[in-house]
């Protein structure tokens, strides 16, 4: 496979761009692998990459029921930040942020990570107090986050309406400068290409129908639409479908799957320089490099696997956006879609071992898994390779729901992730 560089671009431009090689082969399943990863999203592909790169395990397959990056990796609003309240979360998400920093160079693939800043708006006294608490907690953990007055917020993000008569008055905002966005598809493609270069098989359009266990309880492989594939270790990273897959191994999880929606507008010239989030009115918005406004909505109130979601949520979100940014009230929306997110009771991920020997799980990222992609992948690879969690993901066990040692970001963050 070609190493991307200015030289390779130039060479291919001169030959009419006819000699580019495919970025990864369409692999056929072998009879057995050392590790099978179920789910070819950013997390699963990334884990395969780090297994090969850092742990020397290259006899790995990533299997997906659809095409790679076609689930939540391709459906999110691409926001990256790490300003979580609790120490455990701050460590995990900030580890991801550290990896985002060098990711394009590491993968030799431009993931378009843009540190444009995430501005979280405070609309009432409770917001002000809670955000300031977050900022102090973040700073103690070495996580970048600071407080802006309403005027400063407006200077950072000019289209913002901070007039005192606004429907949702802005009393100030928390700003994480290091936060921003990345090109979500490129993350999946970059990891897929880099993993395939190291010998990982990526098997698409091949649903895993069951996880098989031997008489001793240890994992022996997976049943798929293309027959049985043996494996010494299996890691499930299947987002909204994790419950369904894990159920076949006899592991029941504290997960519920909800549709989460997003929408984009027609493309316009650059108008919004950063990401703006409002937890209170539940709206978040940024502008893509193509010029579309990318707007995140909420989850439906009911569990579902429909990948659609209801219109009332879109209406609510767009109404809130128009109040905060009156400038956008004539924008036309082009598309809306839904992804199925797996939500845990404490809104923190489950990343580690399971009661089944040789079976690992990475799930429960709920409405905010994209930002964690490199960190989650890195920790999952470590856990699978060493058969024990890294210090960073050690608190994110499945057992915490029995012991009560929850990481309660649900209470801390209230809504938007």
């Amino acid at each position, binding site marked *: 496979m070609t190493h991307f560089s200015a030289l390779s671009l130039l060479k291919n431009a001169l030959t009419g761009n006819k000699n580019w090689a495919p970025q990864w082969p369409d692999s056929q399943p072998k009879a057995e692998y050392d590790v099978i990863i179920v789910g070819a999203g950013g997390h699963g592909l990334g884990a395969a990459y780090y297994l090969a790169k850092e742990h020397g395990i290259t006899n790995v397959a990533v299997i997906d029921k659809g095409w790679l990056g076609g689930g939540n990796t391709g459906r999110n609003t691409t926001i990256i930040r790490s300003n979580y309240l609790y120490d455990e979360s701050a460590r995990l998400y900030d580890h991801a942020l550290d990896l985002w920093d060098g990711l394009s160079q590491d993968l030799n693939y431009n993931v378009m990570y843009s540190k444009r800043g995430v501005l979280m708006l405070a609309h009432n006294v409770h917001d002000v107090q809670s955000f300031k608490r977050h900022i102090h907690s973040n700073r103690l953990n070495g996580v970048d986050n600071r407080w802006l007055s309403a005027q400063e917020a407006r200077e950072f993000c000019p289209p913002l309406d901070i007039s005192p008569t606004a429907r949702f008055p802005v009393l100030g905002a928390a700003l994480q400068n290091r936060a921003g966005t990345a090109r979500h598809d490129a993350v999946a493609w970059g990891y897929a290409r880099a993993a395939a270069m190291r010998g990982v098989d990526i098997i698409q359009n091949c649903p895993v129908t069951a996880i098989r266990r031997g008489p001793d309880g240890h994992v022996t492989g997976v049943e798929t639409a293309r027959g049985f594939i043996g494996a010494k270790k299996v890691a499930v990273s299947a987002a909204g479908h994790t419950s369904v897959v894990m159920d076949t191994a006899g592991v029941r*999880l504290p997960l519920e799957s909800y549709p989460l929606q997003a929408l984009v507008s027609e493309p316009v010239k650059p108008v919004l320089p950063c990401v703006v989030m409002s937890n209170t009115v539940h709206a978040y918005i940024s502008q893509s490099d193509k010029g579309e406004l990318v707007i995140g909505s909420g989850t439906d*109130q*009911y569990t579902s696997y429909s990948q659609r979601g209801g219109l*009332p949520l879109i209406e609510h979100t767009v109404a809130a956006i128009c109040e905060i940014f009156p400038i956008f009230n004539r924008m036309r929306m082009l598309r809306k879609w839904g992804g199925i997110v797996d939500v845990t009771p404490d809104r923190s991920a489950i990343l580690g071992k399971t009661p089944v020997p040789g079976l690992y799980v990475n799930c429960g990222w709920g409405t905010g898994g994209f930002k964690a992609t490199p960190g989650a992948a890195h920790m999952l690879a470590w856990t699978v390779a060493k058969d024990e969690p890294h210090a960073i993901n050690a608190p994110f066990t499945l057992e915490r729901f029995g012991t009560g040692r929850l990481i309660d970001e649900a209470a801390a963050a209230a809504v938007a992730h």
Partner: protein
Amino acid sequence: MLLIHCPYCAQTLPELEFTYAGEAHIARPDASSPVSDEEWRNFLFIRTNVKGPHYERWRHSHGCGRFFNAVRDTVSDRFLITYKAGEKRPELSDLLEKSK
């Protein structure tokens, strides 16, 4: 938007009148006997999260205010039945037979 039939009001109304209230038929462990951590975990946190017909609770919060149960297919979001709280859990095979 879902259209939901309230078995108390005997009316089919828009989803906005209702509040989802989680999986149905989950019994609280009997506290008169010692309850293990695992039983509490299962009661509080573990859910079937099924892909297909799902037994769930709804509340007609902007109507009669009462809780009732429903079976909804989580793939199509189509309701197979709604029934009053306290009524026997309907057999799935009967419901699927009827909906054919």
